């Protein structure tokens, strides 16, 4: 008997899988999946408006509103850009990080969240080492939560800033996003897909705009079942072949902190998956090169590529501030309009 098949003689109707267990705060951003294309268009439009606005006018938008940054992992770009974004809109920010707070003494995420809420936080920006932590914080505090990276799961604002960067180069002038906006575009994500929240957020967002996502990496870092993560996603182990088809290539850092005992031959990895000048010139001479950072120069990319003309890495960082202004504004203005559904 085939153990995986249910014989037709029995009409078994097992219990259905329930939908989302709780309605999110309308200002929350937990997953790139949650955003409609209209919503993404609006965020991108607001990013453009806010970016070019006079700083003195801009800082009245959220004047003296309170935003907490709760960081359980180290971060340079995400933390700084969220902080600059919130401050740029006039909000007061406070940073709680796991190494200088009662988290060290064993306080749970729930209690830390409730404490921040009691201190007047109106939104919490959370970076956490556990996948799903943002859902826990949302359900316990009922505040708008902005997921600034949860474990290996998602990093939705990174996907939004990556999208802004890609659109500027590949579809300049786009205002309203549609399921065809990125039709014909192939984006290759390379490296440690398994542990990458950046990859997961991009994988759920880009195909909804018509892009094809190619995942590229060794099987230790890219299990075959990644291709089943959603429509428009495929696995291509041959980096050169993937590059050949790509208009954008996103390089990822190997996350040594999440490898959990896995052994990886770095020399072999570099031979197969490092993006270096000759490879880029031979296979994708016009593609843009993205990297969410931090870069390990000489490992996944060479210095020449990181600093080269096809690199948009620092543009991504700049876009981070604009996108996060739009997302922080959304978090606090949605709450003013009446909160949870």
């Amino acid at each position, binding site marked *: 008997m085939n*153990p995986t098949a*249910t014989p037709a003689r029995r009409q078994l*109707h097992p219990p259905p899988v329930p939908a989302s267990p709780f309605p999110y705060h309308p200002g929350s951003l937990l997953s790139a999946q949650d955003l409609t294309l209209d919503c993404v268009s609006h965020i991108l439009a607001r990013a453009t408006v806010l970016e070019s606005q006079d700083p003195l006018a801009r800082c009245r938008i959220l004047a003296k509103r309170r935003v907490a940054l709760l960081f359980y992992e180290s971060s340079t770009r995400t933390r700084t850009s969220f902080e600059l974004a919130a401050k740029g809109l006039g909000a007061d920010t406070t940073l709680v990080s796991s190494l200088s707070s009662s988290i060290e003494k064993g306080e749970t995420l729930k209690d830390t969240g409730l404490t921040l809420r009691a201190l007047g936080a109106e939104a919490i920006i959370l970076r956490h080492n556990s*996948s799903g*932590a943002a859902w*826990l914080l949302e359900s*316990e505090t009922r505040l708008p939560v902005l997921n600034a990276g949860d474990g290996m799961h998602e990093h939705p604002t990174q996907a939004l800033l990556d999208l802004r960067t890609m659109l500027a180069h590949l579809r300049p002038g786009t205002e309203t996003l549609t399921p065809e906006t990125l039709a014909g575009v192939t984006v290759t994500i390379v490296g440690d897909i398994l542990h990458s929240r950046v990859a997961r957020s991009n994988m759920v967002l880009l195909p909804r705009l018509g892009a094809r996502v190619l995942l590229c990496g060794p099987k230790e870092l890219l299990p075959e079942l990644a291709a089943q993560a*959603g429509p428009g996603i495929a696995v291509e182990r041959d980096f050169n072949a993937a590059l050949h088809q790509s208009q954008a290539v996103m390089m990822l850092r190997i996350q040594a902190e999440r490898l959990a*005992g896995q052994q990886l031959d770095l020399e072999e990895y570099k031979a197969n998956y490092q993006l270096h000048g000759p490879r880029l010139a031979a296979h994708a001479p016009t593609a843009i090169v993205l990297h969410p950072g931090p870069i390990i120069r000489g490992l996944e990319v060479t210095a020449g590529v990181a600093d080269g003309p096809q690199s948009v890495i620092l543009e991504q960082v700049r876009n981070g501030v604009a996108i996060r202004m739009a997302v922080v504004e959304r978090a606090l203005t949605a709450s003013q309009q009446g909160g949870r559904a």
Partner: protein
Amino acid sequence: MTALVIRGGHLIDPAAGIDSLKDVLLKDGRVAEIAAPGKLKPADGAEVLDATGLTVAPGLIDMHVHLREPGQGYKETIATGTAAAAAGGFTSAAAMPNTAPVNDSPEVTRWMLAPERGAVIRVFPIAAATRGSKGETINDFAALKSAGAVAVSDDGLPILKDSVMRETLAAAARVGLSVIQHAEDTRLTQVGGKNASMNLGPTSFRLGLRGWPNEAESGIVERDIRLVSELRDARAHLHVAHTSTAAALNAVRQARRNGLRVTCEVAPHHFLLTDEHVGFYDTNAKMCPPLRAAADRDAMIEAILDGVVDAIATDHAPHAVHEKEVEFENAPNGITGLETAFGLCLHWLHKEWKMPLGRVLSLLSAQPAALLNLKGRGTLAVGSFADVVIFDPRAEWTYNARQTKSKSRNTPFDGWKMQGKVRWTISEGRIAYKSEV
């Protein structure tokens, strides 16, 4: 001792081959007489339970529960766990040894059985197979058996080493105990100090959670079956706890065809839910082994209907609310199950999937009694223990976890529809539970 008369009920006792209207007289903790309706001599001072329109069956037996005592009374006590069991129609519960301290000694076994624990139904301790359940040194099974242990297991952990498992099977066979294996190859589920927290598959990838491959279960089951077949002692009995994968079931099925004494149980969550029920990191959908893919879940249903599965067992694993209100990967494994198992089995196995009621009852009573060698239980034949469940098979109700008698309410079945309402649960002639209706 007082006597109890159950009048007007429909008696279903699969082991005794009874399926008809009968009156039942319980006396001195035993079944004293079974007679056609109205034919029982009225006994002096006997309490009479009117079971008209209700079904009377042998009390249910859960061969896999965690009652948390000694040591973790904040999650559950033997008193609260057995109260929940009684509410769920159970009259016997076999308690796993992963307590604090581990039940690896006759002292702990006897402590669990002491009347001061306040059990309202019969508790049958399952003793640890190895010292501290560390999988290294085998315990004194003869001493544990005489203290009251009904089987040995390191549940929560596997007996991983071939040599230790082989010796466990042989030593348990010598004293007539079953070995219950928690089949998890921790070399595949605990990598670099990080534990897998759900089934390995597209859902775990999407959620960014470390996955538990099916092979971690089936590999151990296959290894154990090989060890049983190598042992010349025909009395060696391997029982696979909480089976969750099609591959493990197939191995059990094949072993049985080869004449080996290999049995298995399945928990309600493994034949009802899939890894997609983890939803958005619902820690009440986290247990070990984890919820599997739909194909595995369907294989559980098939194997239950086909008779490959020997028992339904809950793996009732209470945890305090605060322990589950944490990040998914940090939450402890396990869900409660004693109050929901019967209602779910009647709703899904019997009503939806048309399994005869007698077979459902047998999976929950006669068969686990046989697996644990519980003499005089799992049947209401005259002379048996007066362990009875009286229920309304037609009543539909909705489970409300906040009204649980357990200390914990970590269940994915809160708000689920249940079939069959327990009216009375009688443990050795005493009413252990009576519904308010």
